[in-house]
């Protein structure tokens, strides 16, 4: 394609161009071509905004499936499949991991053998213990033996154990999004952090982040009970979170605050997207450090307050992610080892 053709385009012709539509309709996928084209031809601005208006004015009425409906439909799909696959019985599947390398395959084999051993060894109920971790720059989605799902963010560790009475317990160091399934006998599910805070649930969706100086728990759906242990400064406490509430717990002094937030901003990472609402460069720095171990450095601390809003896919490649963030913030990111220096262009 010859880009020069575009010089003679009318607004209507632009609005008909597939690539132009893509640029307007999906701003989260940066389109370098149109940005630079517009920079080279500033006189085309009126035609372009006219065309942009045309494309944007095509909207359709919204229909959406509620979260419980979505889950119910998924359960119906799985139930239907179970009936189909009745003959193919597999005794136990402790976990199937996504994105695992060949080493993990060996680990899974080991776990399967161990699990099979537990399974075939009758009468004695042994506790099941599983553990997993992620390195910098990777996430992992796993299903626990009780069918609860966990997405583990980068550089995190998780240990899972089932006690004799069926109570489920996990120990988390790092960040994870949990989707806990009810069990028939309503056994508890407890998330322990390596600080003075535990999360107790029955069945629900929530995010726990213990990577920084604070532990941040955000509840997306259901209800959870937070148990805060006694410290030198504060008494033990137990409090409930409602959907959309967030608790920040200070690891150092045991202080905590509760407030209402838009849960999606704290949980969207587990679906592979970064949803940014007044997302500052400082927030981006925290993200890059947590997920990739990169330290973002600015000479002018004013820059840290630069904000953007919108959403973008998270790419688990530090360089790509940095380039994307650089474009979004319109800043120059210069990398030296694990340090990233940020300048205005």
């Amino acid at each position, binding site marked *: *394609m010859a880009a020069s*053709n*575009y010089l003679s385009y009318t*607004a*209507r012709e632009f*609005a*008909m*161009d*597939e*690539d*132009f*539509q*893509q*640029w307007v*309709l*999906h701003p989260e*996928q*940066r*389109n370098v*071509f*149109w940005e630079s084209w517009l920079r080279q031809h500033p006189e085309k*601005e*009126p035609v372009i*905004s*006219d065309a942009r*208006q*045309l*494309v*944007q*004015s*095509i*909207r*359709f*009425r*919204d*229909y*959406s*499936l509620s979260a419980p*409906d*979505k889950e119910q*439909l*998924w359960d*119906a*799909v799985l139930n*239907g*499949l179970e009936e*189909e696959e009745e003959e193919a019985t597999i005794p136990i599947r402790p976990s*199937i*991991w*996504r994105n695992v390398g060949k080493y993990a395959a060996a680990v899974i084999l080991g776990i399967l053998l161990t699990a099979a051993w537990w399974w075939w060894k009758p009468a004695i109920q042994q506790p099941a213990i599983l553990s997993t971790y992620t390195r910098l720059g990777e996430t992992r*989605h*796993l*299903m626990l033996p009780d069918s609860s*799902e966990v997405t583990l963010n980068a550089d995190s560790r998780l240990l899972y154990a089932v006690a004799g009475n069926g109570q489920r317990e996990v120990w988390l160091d790092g960040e994870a999004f949990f989707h806990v399934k009810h069990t028939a006998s309503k056994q508890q599910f407890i998330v322990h952090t390596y600080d003075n805070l535990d999360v107790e649930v029955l069945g629900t969706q929530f995010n726990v982040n213990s990577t920084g100086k604070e532990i941040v728990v955000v509840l997306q759906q259901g209800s959870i009970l937070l148990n805060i242990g006694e410290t030198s400064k504060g008494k033990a406490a137990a409090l409930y979170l409602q959907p959309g509430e967030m608790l920040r717990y200070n690891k150092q002094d045991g202080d905590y605050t509760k407030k209402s937030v838009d849960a999606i901003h704290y949980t969207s990472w587990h*679906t*592979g997207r970064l949803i940014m609402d007044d997302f500052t460069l400082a927030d981006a720095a925290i993200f890059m450090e947590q997920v990739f171990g990169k330290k973002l450095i600015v000479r002018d601390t004013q820059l840290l307050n630069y904000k953007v809003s919108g959403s973008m*896919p998270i*790419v688990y490649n530090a360089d790509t992610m940095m380039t994307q963030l650089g474009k979004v913030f319109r800043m120059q990111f210069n990398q030296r080892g694990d340090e990233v220096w940020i300048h205005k262009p």
Partner: protein
Amino acid sequence: MNTGKAFRSGLHVVASHSSLWGLFLQGDRHAFAGIYDAHIDDLFHYGMHFCQDKERVKDCLQDLFQDLWISREHLTANIGNVRYYLISSLRRRLLRALRKDRRYQHRESWEAFEFEYTLPLENQLIQHETIEEQKRLLQEALSNLSRRQREAIYLRFFQNLSYTEVADIMSMQVDSVYNTISKAIGILKKNLPLPLLLLLLGK
């Protein structure tokens, strides 16, 4: 037609979906759940515009995902666009289900693929009555498009399918998809509120 294929952005998004697809074909249930999560909202949206019958759409979706899992061994690894595959499969199922149901025969539903006309935020200074009047005029003009034409426009603008994919799904020629969309854009161009265009020119 200048489609600018070389500059089609978002290729990595498609790639990550296809790798999810690869895992799914190998029988990975998490990948299957991932595909469900990634597409269920858009598929439901399409189904509702297609027939406005929530239970029927849900039934078709349940069958679609069950068959998807059962037939995974026979599906191709080079799927290209999973969304395209799922939408065309849902469309066939809905058509089949509706054909069995006599009530729906030859029904040219007004609500199907109905446009929603909303002004972009930056233009809300314009007087309310003007907006309402413009909306009405525009709705009237757009209602001259047939259901099939509206569906083609919907598939391109809402579901992000390419002109070629839209043509394939609807068994149309690419040219007629292009002409249909051109017609809609022409209507919009003619009917967009005047003050709005002046505002843009004044920039």
